[in-house]
């Protein structure tokens, strides 16, 4: 019988083995999350543990803020009330006519045989906090799967487009702001009708890319969503051009814009409902179907070829 030393000094696996084990798991997680985006379920499960903790951590700030609200002076509220009343009356002239204009627009569109404009509707959500990650521009709102929020829905506030829902948890959702480096919004310049795509720069500004150096863009031009993406309804203000750089050594102009919505502020936002998919005309659907069938066939052929080899 082989003699074993007594387990006095049992210490588990060697530190280096443990280190390689954990580093391997962490790197695998990183790669899967960055390349395949396949860990949303894991994230949602873990969020059930971290979100209560986060709420607990935000409790003192919230209670201080609400206590501040309670002690807002009467004079301040009266002044605000008067200001809002005035703003309402000033807006009334345009607002009262909007209804009539929409009816007229609908009638004219029917006459022309153009599809009716879609009505915008959505639900109001409160911004809870900005995500802590310093590399991305994201906010967390207080509506989640419970309120039928889904990834991809557009988010706006009273002044314009704020961003897009990118991750949904049971009770909260993450919104990527339009100023994030990986966010792009198809837009149209109001003055000229020129269509383009506006990209976030990650520093609070936006850039209108791929417009030729001699494009008709001026400081102060307002960009609105063009609606070509099938996500944003057309016509929501996005940004205003603040600086145009025309360098003849580049073929494109560098056009910087500031977002119109209070993107970095903490307030309420509206999560719009999903845009109903626009049906393609019959001949286009047939063409798309044909292309899909062709693509499927080509992958099958590739597989067959691989098998043969």
């Amino acid at each position, binding site marked *: 019988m082989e003699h074993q030393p007594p387990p006095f000094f049992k210490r588990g696996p060697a*530190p280096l083995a*443990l280190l390689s084990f954990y*580093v391997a*798991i962490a790197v695998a*997680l990183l790669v899967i999350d960055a390349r395949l985006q396949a860990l949303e379920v894991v994230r949602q499960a*873990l969020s059930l543990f971290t979100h209560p903790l986060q709420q607990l951590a935000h409790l003192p700030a919230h209670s201080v803020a609400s206590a501040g609200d309670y002690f807002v002076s009467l004079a301040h509220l009266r002044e605000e009330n008067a200001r809002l009343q005035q703003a309402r009356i000033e807006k009334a002239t345009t607002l009262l006519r909007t209804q009539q204009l929409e009816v007229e627009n609908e009638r004219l569109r029917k006459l022309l045989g153009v599809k009716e404009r879609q009505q915008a509707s959505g639900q109001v959500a409160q911004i809870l906090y900005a995500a*802590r990650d310093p*590399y*991305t521009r994201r906010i*967390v709102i207080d509506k989640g799967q419970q309120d039928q929020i889904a990834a991809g829905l557009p988010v706006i506030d009273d002044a314009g487009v704020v961003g897009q829902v990118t991750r949904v948890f049971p009770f909260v959702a993450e919104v990527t702001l339009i100023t994030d480096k990986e966010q792009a919004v198809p837009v149209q310049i109001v003055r000229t009708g020129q269509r383009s795509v506006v990209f976030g720069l990650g520093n609070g500004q936006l850039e209108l890319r791929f417009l030729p150096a001699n494009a008709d863009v001026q400081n102060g031009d307002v960009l609105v969503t063009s609606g070509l993406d099938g996500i944003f309804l057309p016509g929501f203000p996005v940004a205003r051009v603040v600086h145009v750089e025309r360098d003849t050594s580049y073929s494109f102009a560098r056009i910087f814009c500031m977002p119109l919505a209070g993107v970095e502020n903490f307030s309420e936002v509206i999560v719009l409902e999903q845009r109903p998919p626009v049906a393609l005309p019959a001949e286009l659907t047939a063409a798309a179907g044909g292309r899909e069938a062709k693509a499927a066939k080509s992958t099958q052929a590739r597989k067959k070829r691989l098998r043969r080899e």
Partner: protein
Amino acid sequence: MQTSYRSSARILLPVRPWFIACSLAVALLLNLLPTAASPVLPDWLALVLVFWSVREPRRVGMGLAFLGGIAMDVADAGLLGQHALAYVLAVYGGGALSRRILWFPLAEQALHVLPLLLLVPLVQVVVRVIAGADFPGFGYFLGPLLATLLWPVLTFALLLPQHQPVDHDANRPL
């Protein structure tokens, strides 16, 4: 003898596991505070994890660091695994250097801990830059410097429950 600026080497009572757990939970909560978005504030969880990995390398190891890191990743909306990787590496360093670090007085201990704490944001920056993000600026590395200054304070505060009474009195309850 109490923990002083000159020395932290003294005979202490054994640490209570629930106290380690509580200190880690408090550090996680501090990390989730709304003020924590400013980069100047230290990463409390990293600091406390490194502290316990230096003090009690057999109780606080890479498993706890990994779990804490995953929790931070989900709360932070970053890439899943970036904090976990950074914390695991820092805690491994803390455990490996534990015997050496504890030999020194507190100020020099803090100097030894600085590279470990700098490793945490460095690993995250490298991971995110590889994944396609921009460099967030050098302000990002200020947190570990402040955390290093806090090392002596933290040592005193977290070792307080392990201090023995200076004069042994049979009639005193504590």
